[in-house]
């Protein structure tokens, strides 16, 4: 295998593994804020036990997130040095901001969250909870701003370093001029400039407008979409663990209260996600039509485009095995894709008139002609498939993500319904409730699979580009890193992460088995916090040993 595919596998593997954890902490952070706020409001020790238990879980997840996150910060440089040189002026800033404004906030205040129960009062502790949650959301913002630059580059221009002699003439950087007779300047390139391999040492992306970079055409949609996915991930962890306790009749009061909070958050978030997904997909259709056509498995441009619910997409190959097109067979709803893309839900008839471009027209003739000025239209059509992502994979990951949303919505709303009917809390009376609680336990996988497959859709759908329609992934590698080095590190990452994952599961499980405190008298509250417990009524219990 060559360096490119190994480096891509290593990046996908390390970021995929890392991305199991931050969504959990982001989502759990939101739930922790709610729980701690409920404690401050009601002074009911139940909510304190809850916050305390979920904080311990948060700590374990966060530790793995940090350990695997350091790798990500350096991997742009280790494996993608050409990319780093090319985009550093634009792409480095959000990463640095993420460090300064998000990671410090999160890790610093997490110390108070985890170890500060006896050191600070409840209000400062609550403030710390908010800061941790805020920090984890900030990190989502900045990493998505950075990533969105790769999807829909904005706020930059390409510039080339040249040697300028005293009379003002520009020479290439490689020109052999006498020392002292020239200065190196960076000159902007025209808009229709096409990046050449030979220029990679002298051309780079240069910041033009930082706020255009932040609010690039895709960044806000993707930020909202991903944040909601993270909320679902953390919330379904709470649902899963609570269902386990309910099924085992352990920590029932705790599990009921946790489940209620989580079901509410999950239902609202699932609905918001529907709206965000619609907006995000329309953005992809507009800004990255090739990716969109791959997601939908659409070969030919058409009005009245159908929405595929699921199916199979394969490559169509010529006699030599080159990709020339796609074959798809999928279950479809006629016209719905055009209506969704138009966004005109009130006039479906008119919306269906919207043309959706298919892969056979993407990327556009004009775009390809600029890259290959010497080729005839027929030759242009031949090179087109080189500019497609891996359509069969992108189609499937996209549809897996959507199917997971279906499962998420089902669990959340069925749970709400059963709660409303008062049936959810009596699994011993009903086989169906036991089945549903089992479903809840397993539902922890749904948002995780959705996040991972959604991420694969976004990143594989971007290929062959590392910066969309500017820099190819194959041009972005480190010049000096060899395949055997990457293979070695990849194998070691595989081993270490496997071990790490086992230990993580083991540790998570032991915390879940240990469970939250059962004390409802406030006797187990931190000493300084006790006088605040239960504003009336139960104060006389304070300080007594918990009833056995």
């Amino acid at each position, binding site marked *: 295998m060559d360096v490119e595919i190994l480096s891509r596998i290593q990046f996908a593997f390390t970021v995929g593994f890392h991305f199991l954890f931050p969504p959990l902490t982001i989502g759990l952070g939101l739930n922790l804020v709610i729980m701690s706020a409920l404690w401050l409001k009601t002074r009911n020790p139940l909510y304190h036990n809850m916050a305390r238990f979920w904080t*311990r879980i948060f700590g374990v997840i966060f*530790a793995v997130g*940090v*350990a695997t996150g*350091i*790798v990500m*910060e*350096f991997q*742009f*440089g*280790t494996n993608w*040095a050409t990319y*780093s*040189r090319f*985009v*550093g*002026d*634009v*792409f*480095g*800033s959000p*990463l*640095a*901001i993420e*460090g*300064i*404004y998000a990671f*410090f*906030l999160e*890790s*610093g*205040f*997490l*110390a*108070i969250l*985890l*170890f*500060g*129960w*006896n*050191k600070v009062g409840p209000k400062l502790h609550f403030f710390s909870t908010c800061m941790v949650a805020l920090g984890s959301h900030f990190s989502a913002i900045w990493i998505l701003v950075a990533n969105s630059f790769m999807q829909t580059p904005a706020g930059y221009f390409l510039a080339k370093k040249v040697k300028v002699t005293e009379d003002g003439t520009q020479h290439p950087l490689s020109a052999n001029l006498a020392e002292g007779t020239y200065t*190196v300047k*960076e000159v902007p390139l025209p808009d229709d400039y096409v990046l050449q391999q030979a220029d990679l*040492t002298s051309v780079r992306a*240069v*910041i033009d407008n*930082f706020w255009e970079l932040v609010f690039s055409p895709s960044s806000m949609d993707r930020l909202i979409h991903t944040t909601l996915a993270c909320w679902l991930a953390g919330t379904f962890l709470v649902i899963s663990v609570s269902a386990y306790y309910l099924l085992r009749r352990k920590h029932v009061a705790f599990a009921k209260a946790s489940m209620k909070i989580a079901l509410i958050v999950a239902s609202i978030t699932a609905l918001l996600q529907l709206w965000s997904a619609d907006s995000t997909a329309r953005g992809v259709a507009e800004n990255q039509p090739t990716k969109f056509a791959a997601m939908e498995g659409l070969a030919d441009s058409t009005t009245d485009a159908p929405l595929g619910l699921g199916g199979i997409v394969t490559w169509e190959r010529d006699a030599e095995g080159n990709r020339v097109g796609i074959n798809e067979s999928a279950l479809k709803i006629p016209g719905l894709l055009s209506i969704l893309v138009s966004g005109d839900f009130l006039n479906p008839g008119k919306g269906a008139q919207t043309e959706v471009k298919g892969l056979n027209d993407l990327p556009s003739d004009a775009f390809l002609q600029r890259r290959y000025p010497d080729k005839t239209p027929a030759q242009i059509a031949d090179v087109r498939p080189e500019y497609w992502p891996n359509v069969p994979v992108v189609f499937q990951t996209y549809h897996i993500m959507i199917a997971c949303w279906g499962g998420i919505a089902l669990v959340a709303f069925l749970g709400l319904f059963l709660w409303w009917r008062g049936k959810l809390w009596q699994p011993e009376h009903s086989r169906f409730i036991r089945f549903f609680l089992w479903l809840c336990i397993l539902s922890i996988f749904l948002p995780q699979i959705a996040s991972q497959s959604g991420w694969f859709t976004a990143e594989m759908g971007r290929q062959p580009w590392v910066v969309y329609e500017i820099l190819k992934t194959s041009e972005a590698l*480190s*010049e*000096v*890193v060899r395949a055997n*080095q990457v293979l*070695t*590190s990849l194998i*070691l990452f595989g081993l*270490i992460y496997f071990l*790490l994952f086992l*230990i993580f599961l083991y*540790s998570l499980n*032991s915390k879940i088995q240990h469970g939250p405190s059962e004390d409802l008298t406030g006797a187990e509250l931190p000493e300084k916090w006790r006088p605040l417990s239960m504003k009336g009524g139960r104060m006389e219990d304070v300080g007594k040993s918990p009833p056995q």
Partner: protein
Amino acid sequence: MDLPTIWFILVGVLFTGYVMLDGFDLGVGGLHLFVRKDEDRRIFLNAIGPVWDGNEVWLVTGGGALFAAFPEVYATVFSGFYDAFMLLLFGLIFRAVAIEFRSKQPGRLWRGGWDTAFAIGSLLSSLLIGVAMGNVIHGVPLNENHEFMGTILTLLNPYSLMVGVFTVSLFLMHGNIYLILKTEGELQQRLLRWVKVTIPIFLVLFAIVGFSTPALLPHIGEALARKPIPLILFFVLAILLALNIPREVYRGKEFRAFLCSCGTMASLMILFGATVYPNMVFSVPDPANSLTIANGSSTDKTLGFMFVVALIGVPIVIAYMASIYYIFRGKVKLDAESY
């Protein structure tokens, strides 16, 4: 002052924050196996418990700032030192995992295994950080596109290994002083005795590195001749601060001793920065290919914007980080939430 110089200093501040803070917890890791009792080892772990992951954030942020301000340097160093950085990452991951999971199970084998992982991970990370810095001082082969032309063996030259060992001794001393701050009773007495070993070793190695560097490396000799005052000043300052540590320790001023240790590290980092400036990666044998603050930096627009960002953000970070350290001041007490 021009923007690349400002950013040279800012990146320096972040990396100084990193070695000053993660330096003591790496040092604690290196000393970990020298105590045998389980309770003592837990006290070591919990001395750094609330702060170690925050300390590593300085490295992450330093890396991010280097990427933003000096992308050429970031790309050259991380791709060129590929194997070394992968080893460092594995060391740091192992260490993090060991801290997190060691005390989760009572078994002797379990705890002994993680203790060893913690110690080796810490020592290996310290050594590699030192070797990387040694190579920056020593210089590495770069071509005209600033690409690294050597292998891992190029990086493991005797000079850089010496700086690596010196860095280990520095972190061990720093960890030693930090532990004195966080312990009491018999354990603290033992740690006080250790100072008699860790500080002299550090001073001897510092003298060797300090005097051999300008002698062995002609470009550093030239730098010394060009700007003798700051280099000699911070060299002497580092030694004086290090010599003051035992004095403060025996007067019972633990916190002052720790501040002196931090001061030693800061002086060393300033010395390091002042020595290499304006180069960021010096190229041997062809110095013309060196990466400098001028040819390795981002545009002034990015540097200017990010300067404002840092000017607002970094003081806030330092303020709340200091408050958090203040909240966790005092001796380690093991409780239910401890590692």
